[in-house]
């Protein structure tokens, strides 16, 4: 039984790490902020999700349910904050790209004029 659990953990954690590696390579290699964000969010969401999923059985065996609940809570919080922050950063990057390009569409609609 433990062997099955261990194999399960190893496979999922390895898969999670793969996502992190891909995300990091994307962060370093992709050309513009929006594409880099795209790569990073994958690492955050799926990569961390796989890690947590892989570790939950170990936590249950070792320390009971509370540790597992904590890990899942961490994953949910990261989901929430990374999603929202990626949105914000994408927003800023998009407007910055628009501002830099004189042929950009009307930007007053986005309201990125800095407040006085």
């Amino acid at each position: 039984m433990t062997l099955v659990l261990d194999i399960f953990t190893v496979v999922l954690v390895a898969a999670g790490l793969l996502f992190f590696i891909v995300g990091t390579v994307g962060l370093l290699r992709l050309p513009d902020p929006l594409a880099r964000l795209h790569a990073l969010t994958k690492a955050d969401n799926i990569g961390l999700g796989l890690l947590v999923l892989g570790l939950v059985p170990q936590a249950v065996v070792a320390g009971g349910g509370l540790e597992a609940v904590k890990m899942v809570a961490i994953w949910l919080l990261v989901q929430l904050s990374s999603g929202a922050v990626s949105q914000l950063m994408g927003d800023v990057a998009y407007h910055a790209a628009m501002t830099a390009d004189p042929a950009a569409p009307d930007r007053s609609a986005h309201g990125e004029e800095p407040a006085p």
Partner: protein
Amino acid sequence: MSLLLDAILALLVLAAAVRVAAGGDGFARVVAFMGVGLLLGLIWVRLAAVDVALTEVAVGSGITGLVLLQAAADAPLTREREVGLLYHLCAGMVGLVVFAALAVVVLLLPDPAPSLAPDVVRALPATDLGNPVTGVLLVFRALDTLLETMVLLVALIGVWSLSPDRHWRRAPAPLWPAPPSGALDFLARVLVPIGALVGIYMFWAGADVPGGAFQGGAVLAAMALMAMMAGLSPVPAIGGAGLRLAVLAGPFAFLGVGIAGWFLAGAFLDYPEGFEKTVIIAVEVAITVSIAVTLALLVLGPPMGRKA
């Protein structure tokens, strides 16, 4: 094996630190610095200092990072001075000397290490606290902690003093100049209540397990700032009596308890016997409130010309 992981952690910190010191874009440096802070938090856990780890991540990396980001955004990079190659070499030599001397000292520290841990163990039962770090902060070295709350207060006065006198009752500028976006609003609505709960728990649990007034106060301050950034609550004017009382509550409740100790227990900052824990928790409540408010106000900066 764990030493290998520790070594990797140390190398990561060093690389990020070199990135911080290397110069270039202000934002990149600040972000690298926040990375240093987060990694240092991990190192503090590895050093079995969880209270410090929480403080480092919440205050040393988080709130400090927020302040530094503002500096990077506000102050365009001005090359105030150009330093020559010779000066660089001299500074490098000084750095090397500092490193070498400290490294020798670290390697030659006496063995067995002198420690106050046994003294703390002997004295801790008298305080009725379970967390030795809280015991040191609020009992054995209460004077330092009292003064630390004063330091925060004086720093706030110093920051406010940068504004003209006539602005002393107005509000600081908002942190986030653009109108709030939907994503931030959503994040704040969900995260602020959870974070506030975590902050209160950190302070409450601090008597017996890692956590305490400083860590809890920092989390509460961060949540208040997030609510303001998302536009859920306005930036408060600094003239309000409630706000000012909240700033004063911690240091002066602490001072009051200290003076009461003279009459009830026979020494300044001594706690009456049998009520140690009750009084300590009460002081911590006041300190937590003040720290939360003061940290948030320090991040917001001096009041500007805008009326709240």
